């Protein structure tokens, strides 16, 4: 099992130093919303944007601060399933930290525990053993409703199958998390977020009128509308062609650069995983390898 070595800064109590909610930390520092042309162009080009700095151009939430403290701290995570008399050790002692402003890719064959791990990190499931802190909140032992409370507004989700509500328009799908959080819905803000994913002109369309790539970008916009600290993407390119998959990862890189978001993504695609800051490989519920991706050195600074 491999775990990331913690720097002194990492050992700070995230409950007091970590961003409980990204907007809490970033709010004061974010510049006003600006045009999404830069990001849109980058996404349309299917490549990584040239600008990786923190100037904040392109996304309506504004630019990032450089708070690299861990937003996810996992220690000794264990998750077992019982299938009849058989016990499946889906996760068997995983340590992992994920920081703001970094992308962690999780690789591994089917059944290696990728989805189990990501379910735990995203508070959709609870570990049988080990400790987990997400966005500054200890979540070990919490029940379903308490886990929901941790997720709400702090974690954005992108899934392989998009999971847009077919009855709602693109804009309404994007606004859905705000509805549940009882946040005021500002259509102008929604359009800005959609502009950032180059879908402003599709706001009133229904999901069935979109391509797969477009639907996944709507899912990204939905994940970002509440300005979460963490973006969890489970096989987000699984239903996309190569160009759209690369465009999506470019979008992730852009969000990290501009928003200081922490992104955890599972994928089977080594090429795409290379774009992450760190690549974790799982086998049989354990981390067997940790590598640095192409983003290393540019964005991750140990100890924040």
């Amino acid at each position, binding site marked *: 099992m491999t775990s990331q070595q913690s720097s002194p800064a990492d050992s700070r109590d995230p409950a007091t130093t970590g961003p409980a909610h990204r907007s809490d930390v970033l709010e004061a520092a974010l510049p006003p919303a600006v045009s999404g042309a830069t990001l849109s162009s980058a996404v349309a080009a299917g490549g990584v944007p040239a600008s990786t700095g923190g100037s904040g151009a392109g996304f309506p939430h504004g630019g990032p601060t450089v708070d690299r403290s861990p937003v996810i701290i996992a220690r000794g995570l264990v998750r077992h399933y019982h299938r009849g008399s058989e016990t499946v050790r889906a996760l068997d002692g995983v340590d992992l930290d994920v920081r703001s402003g970094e992308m962690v890719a999780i690789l591994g064959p089917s059944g290696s525990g990728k989805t189990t791990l990501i*379910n735990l990190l*995203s508070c*959709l*499931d609870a570990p049988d053993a080990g400790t987990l802190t997400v966005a500054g909140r200890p979540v070990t032992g919490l029940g*379903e*409703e308490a886990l*929901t409370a941790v*997720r*709400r*507004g702090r974690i*954005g*989700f992108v*899934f*392989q*199958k998009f*999971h847009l*509500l*077919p*009855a*709602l328009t693109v804009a*309404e799908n994007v*606004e*859905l*998390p705000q*509805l*549940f*959080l009882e946040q005021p*819905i500002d259509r102008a803000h929604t359009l800005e977020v959609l502009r950032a994913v180059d879908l402003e002109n599709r706001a009133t369309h229904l999901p069935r009128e979109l391509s797969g790539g477009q639907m996944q970008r709507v899912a990204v916009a*939905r*994940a970002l509308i*509440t300005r979460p600290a963490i973006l969890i993407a489970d096989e987000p390119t699984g239903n996309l062609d190569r160009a759209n998959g690369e465009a999506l990862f470019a979008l992730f890189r852009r969000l990290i650069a501009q928003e200081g978001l922490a992104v955890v993504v599972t994928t089977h695609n080594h090429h795409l995983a290379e774009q992450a800051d760190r690549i974790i490989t799982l086998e049989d519920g354990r981390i067997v390898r940790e590598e640095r991706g192409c983003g290393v050195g540019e964005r991750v600074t140990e100890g924040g």
Partner: protein
Amino acid sequence: MGYFRLALRNLAHRPLRTALTVTGIGLAVAVAVSLIGFNLGYRQSIHTSIDKLGFQVMLMAKGCPYEAATMMLKGGTGLLYLPTSTFDEVKMDPELAAITPIFVGLAQKEGGGLRDDEGGAFVVLSGIDQASFLTMKPWLTFAEGPGREGGRWFAPEAANEVVMGFEVAEYEQRKVGDTFYVTVTPQGQTEPQTHEMKVVGILDRTGTQDDGTVFLPLSTARRLFNRPDELTIVGVKLKEFSGVRLREFEKRWAKLPEVQVVSLQQVKTTLVSLVETAQTMIAAVAVVAIIVAVIGVINTILMSVVERTGEIGIMKAIGATRGDIFQIIWLETLAICLGGGLLGCVGALLGARAVEAALRLLIDVGAHGSIVAITPGILLGALGGAAALGVFAGLYPAWRAASLRPIEAIREGE
């Protein structure tokens, strides 16, 4: 966008299924509203009809009280007769305020109209003593308007003059001065005889059985039917009407052979109980329809929940609590039931006349005027009932949906 709008959008996304479910509830509500409206309207109609008979007690030949009741109100068939001597004896009763002899007969006619037990078309003829009859019913006046001007009562012994009730005149398309043929089979003969009568007046609408009756002098009616010494009904108004006085009156005259004394209160009770039997059966059908509709709603929403397991999972993943999901699904059920309730109310209002016609075909309601009274109170009650059904029907599907664990729901939805 609030939860209710979200619920409506979800329903609108499956228009056929939603429409069918709403229609199911709508039909059940329409049946229930019509039934309650019929119950109310019928009672009002019976009360109006009987109160406007003008007399409190009637004497008639012994027989089935149901038949007697409907005969009195509508004419009916299988008429039985009293001897005139009964009238002569009863009119000497010291407690009488007024008394009137009536001879009811049925005339055959061509074309449509009321039909007797053999299916023949007929019209109700009522031979009356004009003076005493009007003492009982002082509100009878002649209709005005084109074709009805100059209406008057027939001369007491006129052999060929009739006064028509409002509805029968409209149905037969007769004006004052027109000819009206009545075909009757006199007692003792087998061949019907046709008589040419002249319409001398058309009565204003009363909302009672009088609207469907053709009036003619008592003596003429008895002559046409060759029953010179018989009556059908003797209408009586007592000086003081009470249970005690009625029983005393009944005791005095029940001794006469072949005579039964029927109070209007008895008639009301008889008619209402007659119809209540039919209503109980219809109510049972309505209850079954509502149960089936509610099961249909629960089934539809459960199917929807199963189909949308993935959606529900994703909603929970992105922040929806159990309460949020419960509300959304519950509101969907409520919206279906309220929609069905509205549809049912509109359907019942529009279909009230059709329902009434069907009821009149199915049972001898024995009342004139509208017998379906759908009031705002009934409609509000129906909507409230539909909402209550929605609240009840939505509980289980909403609970099922709210209980889904997001991780499993998303997996099942894929």
